[in-house]
């Protein structure tokens, strides 16, 4: 998107946190240059010259509503100026009104649905598009638990009013993490990635007509943890050894918490040794894929 209105494509991104006490995140822009290259990331300021920040609650401690996940530039209120809609750790959405090319109001307002803050579970991920083709912008979002969700704009192009959340793609239910949990919940591992049939957790969405058939499709990015067998180890052996190792891991975490610096160092060494032990028969791979949902 062309954030500063100079006719050259820019890249707009949220960034999680500036690691200050309130954990507020920043907005970053890679300004495009003619010739297709980009400048280094620059913090996006509000029209008051200060970095744009998500509004926080009361108090001066860490506030998950200020941790920025994803930013999206669009003309939400139809005034011809590019606005900014942002998601956060807490799962809500806020709107910075545009004040002309590259300028945004310093203070944001939370987007509402039915009088309440619009919200997905956590890690809101706004992508605005005229989903129902009625001339105004609707909001589609991923979430920390996966899936894709739609808030239809039931107002107008100039006075957006969002309806209740609808599910476009069900949340994955945590299948992004193959390992983990306590004794009762430990799932049997599936090696490799051939078993993947859809997105995992922590989804990020984009909407466009990808195949050119005139219908809006959905792109969904995700996070998934895969488990591979170590070189030379067959699946049966790896599965047996992994089951035994998981019991050791669970016993390890049931120990009383370490005390003092020496105790923490000992705990850390033992933990690293345990992880190293697993590498002899299985290896985790954290990655993310992109899934295409073509509209029927």
């Amino acid at each position: 998107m062309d954030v500063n209105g100079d006719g050259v494509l820019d890249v707009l991104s949220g960034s999680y946190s500036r690691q200050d006490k309130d954990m507020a995140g920043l907005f970053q822009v890679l300004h495009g240059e003619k010739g297709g290259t980009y400048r280094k990331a620059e913090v996006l300021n509000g029209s008051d010259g200060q970095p744009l920040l998500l509004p926080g609650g009361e108090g001066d401690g860490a506030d998950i509503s200020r941790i920025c996940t994803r930013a999206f530039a669009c003309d939400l209120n139809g005034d011809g100026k590019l606005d900014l809609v942002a998601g956060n750790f807490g799962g809500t959405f806020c709107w910075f009104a545009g004040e002309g090319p590259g300028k945004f109001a310093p203070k944001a307002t939370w987007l509402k649905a039915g009088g309440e803050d619009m919200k997905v579970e956590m890690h809101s991920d706004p992508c605005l598009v005229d989903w129902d083709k009625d001339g105004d912008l609707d909001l589609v979002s991923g979430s920390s638990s996966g899936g894709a969700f739609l808030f239809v704009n039931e107002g107008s192009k100039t006075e957006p009013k969002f309806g209740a959340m609808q599910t476009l793609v069900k949340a994955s239910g945590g299948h992004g993490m193959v390992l983990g949990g306590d004794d009762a919940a430990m799932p049997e591992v599936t090696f490799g990635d051939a078993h993947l049939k859809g997105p995992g957790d922590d989804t990020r969405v984009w909407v466009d007509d990808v195949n050119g058939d005139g219908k809006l499709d959905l792109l969904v990015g995700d996070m998934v943890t895969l488990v591979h067998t170590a070189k030379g180890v067959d699946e049966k052996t790896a599965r047996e050894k992994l089951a035994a190792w998981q019991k050791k891991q669970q016993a390890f975490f049931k120990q009383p918490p370490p005390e003092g610096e020496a105790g923490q160092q000992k705990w850390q060494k033992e933990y690293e040794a345990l992880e190293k032990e697993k590498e002899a028969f299985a290896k985790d791979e954290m990655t993310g894929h992109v899934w295409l949902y073509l509209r029927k």
Partner: protein
Amino acid sequence: MVTLTLFVPLILAAPQGPQFEAPVRMKAGDAFVACEAPGFACPTWHDVDGDGKKDLAVGQFKDGKIKVYKNTGDGKLATGEWLLAGKKPAEIPGVW
């Protein structure tokens, strides 16, 4: 028990959502589009290179880098290349 047996196929046959075909994991070249660890793929469909065809750009957690998969125009994507700032892969600090 009989009731369950009768109803399970009906539930499975019901459409999960009315509007989509089954999801397809996107490929670029012969490989799946994939992020570096720890993942967190954030896709965008946009004409990045200005050739009139929309490309796939995927942001990731690690170093806040973005990989661009050019649309080759035959329904396929080329192998990804990092989006550059100057001559180095662009990095966005503090990205989730």
